[in-house]
């Protein structure tokens, strides 16, 4: 299974970015091979609106079926849901911690956006 986690860093020990749309990048983790790659998301940092829409398309391009992030707004949620990508919200501080929580079954799949747009 491919998992995309929002982050500002480059490795599993990097901090998890709690924003979805405006996270600088996604760490794309393959739970079978334990390998990962990085997907840039910086084109959204200065977007006045719609960052979540573009970010969700970026995630879909990676083939991820799961997203782990801090919070997810309504537009991103709509796009991810259409692409059948599951969303998990977490308070985890690092990417590794988030992956471990998911693998231990400690995260609950979100059924709706948990914040309004522009919540930051």
């Amino acid at each position, binding site marked *: 299974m491919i998992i995309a986690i929002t982050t500002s860093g480059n490795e599993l020990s990097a901090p998890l970015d709690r924003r979805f749309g405006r996270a600088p990048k996604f760490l794309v983790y393959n739970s079978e091979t334990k390998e990962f790659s990085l997907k840039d998301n910086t084109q959204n940092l200065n977007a*006045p*609106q*719609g960052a979540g*829409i*573009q970010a*969700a*398309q970026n995630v*879909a391009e990676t083939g991820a079926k799961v997203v782990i992030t801090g919070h997810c707004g309504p*537009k991103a949620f*709509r*796009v991810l849901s*259409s*692409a*059948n990508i599951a969303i998990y919200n977490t308070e985890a501080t690092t990417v590794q911690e988030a992956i471990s929580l998911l693998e231990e079954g400690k995260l609950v799949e979100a059924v709706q956006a948990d914040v309004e747009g522009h919540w930051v």
Partner: protein
Amino acid sequence: MQIAVASGKGGTGKTTVSVGLAQAYDAPVIYLDCDVEEPNGAIFLKPERKFHTDVNVRVPQVDKDNCVACGKCSELCQFNAIITMGGAAMVFPEMCHSCGGCVQICPVGAISETDNCIGSVNCGSSSQITALEGVLNIGHAMAPPLIKAVKKHVHKDVLNIIDCPPGTSCPLLESVKGSDFVILVTEPTPFGLHDLKLSVETMRELQLPFGIIINRSDSGDDRVVNYCKDEGIPLLLEIPESRKIAEAYSRGETVVQADSRLKDNLEGLLTDLIETYGGGK
């Protein structure tokens, strides 16, 4: 004649000056509140409501049974208003700039257009003032089409005062468009000056004649005055920091009602501007 009142920084006194000008003018005048995200001129002018119209823009709708998910519409759209996901195009109407490109490019005719209400225009009157305002619906980001709808009520034969939104982006450009003169209202603070410079650059780029009013002029320092001198920008008026004006404001009254000298100043300013930039009317 069309006079726009703009600022750069928010909260400097655009509405204070705009409604003051409208009330100081002794002839029919149209006041247009183009600060559609939070119009507040009506609080001071207290117009009697004449009419209210909804403003719609055209946005795409997708026939999911016909969509082949080719992605051409999403590729064309620069605003992420239509994207292809999960086997069909999906629309985010609040992002749409209504260019109609997606409808044109769709190879199977699966996209048509429908109305999306973005806000409304209210019209009222208060003595010789016809007051218009645009009110953008909550959650909508597209101010320019609504501003355009407000400005359809500009009448060439009378004085039109445009109360602009803050900033120097699209809503401001739409608001000042077609103006004969722009009044930039600022405050004598570093923040006020910083944003004033952005507004000045914008007016020069647009080649619109402009001058400056300093509000609460004795509250800060003289760097705005010095900037005006250095740049050769006319300083039209200074409105003092005054408890009397602040008290009137808190009661929903205007500078003209608070201070008769300011009424004379604003009236004199209008006479000069109409003479110099409005061809006498």
